[in-house]
Every structure is written in C-alpha cells, then in structure tokens.
C-alpha cells in the first residue's frame, strides 16, 4: 500500500515538476556530462555545444623583453579557421574570456610584431586554458617584396608571402629600392620595382625646337622614381 502511494507521488512529481521544469525556457538544467553525446538538460545543445560546458581561455601577451603588450589582438578561430572570438589585451597584457569547450587556433598579433599562431589549443569542459603569447619584433616579407615596418624592397623576400621578382637580375636591381621605382634592368631594358617585367627603353634624345624665334630652356634637378632627373621647362615666343 505504501509502495503504491510512494510510486504515485513519484509519478505525480515527475509529471508536474520535473518535466515542466526541464522544458521551461527560463530553467535550464545543467549538462551533467560534457562528453556523453547526450543532451542531458534537454536544451538542444549537446556536450561542448552547450554553454554549460564552457571553459575559459586566458593568457598574457608580452614582447621579447617580457613587457606587457596592451592592445594586442587575439583571434580565436574554429576548426574551419572561422573567427569565433576576437579579444584585445588590456594594460597588463591580459585577455580572458569564456568559450565553448573545444579545439581552437589562436592567432595573436600586434602592430609590426611577428604574428603568433598556435594551433590545437584545447579548452576542456569547465576548464581554463592558459595561452600566453610572446610576440617578437621582426621584419616579415610582404607581397610587394618589402619588409613590414618599412618600404624597402628586399631581394631575399623572393618567393615569400607572394613576393615574386621577374628573375634574379630583377631582384638584384630592385634590392633596397622602393616599390614603384624605375631601375635599369640592363643597357636596353628598364623595370618598375619590385615585380615589374623588364621593358624596352623608349627614350628619345632631347632636341628641342620652337616654331617661333626664341626659346628658353630652364632645368631643375629633381628626384623621380628613385633617380635624379632633370625637370625641363621650355618657353617659346
């Protein structure tokens, strides 16, 4: 008899208390196991997809002299390298955030320092992943064959990050020049640094004539595309 009563109480409790609570939008039971592939709290999210299983990612960003870097950007990317979160370090170089548990790639960068990429950063359920980053100053080749932080072409950048000189002569000619400068490729050709194709020199000897009686020629030495040239002004009348 008692057992029947107890059974009835349990059934009634289940029907009127547990089930409504579980499905109530304002009441989310806890995902009790974050690795059993079961949606324990019936909220539609299973295991690491459930924020109940979120962990924390945090870390300090500093430079090679261990000085904290404020304003460093920390991008957290998912397995498809899509950005999930973006953070900026504070005055102490610290960043911290709650994040769904899982495996991420973390990219940290700041101004002209060499960006740091860390793959397979695992945030465990309810765990804290400490991901410190040290950024080093350095020059990285860019696609226009210059280094980060300056506008000088480096022949050594050939083949790096999209930098592609026409050939080794072009690389040698444009070494230490600036993008856009016109340099002599050889006696008959010139090229526009850094990645231009050598072209025939189409130069005409300057023999100036005037349809009227008098002609005055004034020249000024100026810099053009990295070379000293003469700007010539001729008046005629």
């Amino acid at each position, binding site marked *: 008899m008692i057992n029947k009563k107890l059974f009835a109480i349990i059934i009634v409790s289940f029907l009127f208390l547990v089930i409504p609570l579980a499905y109530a939008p304002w009441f989310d039971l806890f995902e009790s196991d974050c690795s059993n592939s079961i949606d324990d709290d019936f909220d539609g999210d299973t295991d690491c997809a459930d924020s109940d299983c979120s962990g924390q990612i945090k870390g300090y960003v500093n430079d090679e002299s261990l000085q904290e870097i404020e304003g460093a950007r920390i991008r957290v990317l998912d397995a498809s390298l899509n950005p999930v979160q973006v953070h900026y370090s504070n005055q102490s170089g610290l960043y911290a955030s709650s994040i769904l548990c899982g495996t991420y790639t973390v990219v940290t960068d700041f101004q002209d320092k060499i960006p740091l990429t860390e793959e397979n950063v695992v945030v465990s359920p309810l765990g804290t992943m400490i991901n410190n980053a040290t950024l080093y100053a350095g020059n990285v080749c860019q696609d226009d064959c210059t280094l980060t932080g300056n506008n000088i072409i480096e022949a050594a950048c050939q083949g790096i990050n999209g930098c592609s000189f026409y050939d080794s002569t072009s690389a040698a000619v444009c070494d230490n020049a600036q993008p*856009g400068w016109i340099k002599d490729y050889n006696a008959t050709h010139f090229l526009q640094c850094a990645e231009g194709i050598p072209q025939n020199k*189409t*130069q*005409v*000897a*300057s*023999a*100036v*004539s*005037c*349809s*009227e009686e*008098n*002609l*005055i*020629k*004034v*020249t*000024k030495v*100026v*810099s*053009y*595309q*990295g*070379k*000293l*040239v*003469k*700007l*010539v*002004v*001729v*008046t*005629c*009348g």
Partner: protein
Amino acid sequence: MALLTSDRAIMILLAISVFVLLKTFLTIGEDKLQHDAVLLAERLTNISNAGSIAGYNGINIEKMKELRSHEYLELKERYGVTSDFCIFIEDDKGEVLRLDGFGVGIGSDKIAINGEPCD
C-alpha cells in the same frame, strides 16, 4: 653738301633708333620667356605650391597625371604664364623620359622635342 651730310646723319640716327627699339623689344621678349620659364619651374617644383608636381619623395606621378588632365590654356592660367611652354623630364644622359600614358611632354604643340610636338 651740308644738306647731304645732314640727311645722312638723320638716316644714320634713324637706323640706330630702329635698331635700339628692335633690340629693346627683343630683349623684353626674351626676358619674358626667361621669367616665365623660371616661374613655371619654381611653381612646379615648390612643394608648398598648389600646382606643384613634387612631393617629399620627388616628382609625384599622380600629380603629373593630374597636370596632364588639364587643357593647355588652363595650365597657362593656373601657373600665371603667358609664354608657350613645354614641360618634360630628362634622365642623366639627357634623354627624354617618357612616362606611361604620356606624350613626350606636357605643353604647347609649338614646341617640339626631336620633331615630336609637346602636347
């Protein structure tokens, strides 16, 4: 005889006057050309001038293109010169540098460089 001498003197004086006048006009014309050439060169290369084609790294190709986009008469007005002019660039060997999309120079077709009109 005296009359003949007087006529001769007047003729000589007249010739001298004509010569002096001609010379004066010619000199004024040359001075004007010189003045305009110097003024134009200065205005083109002085960075603080609105019509300058120079930047802090030398001649600016974008400014050259902008210059090229104007009518010749507009340019004369812009730089305050009345003489016909031609602007071009020579390299260190004295050869004309042709810029991409440009003719031999920018200016009047009354001036030719190696037989090619400067326009």
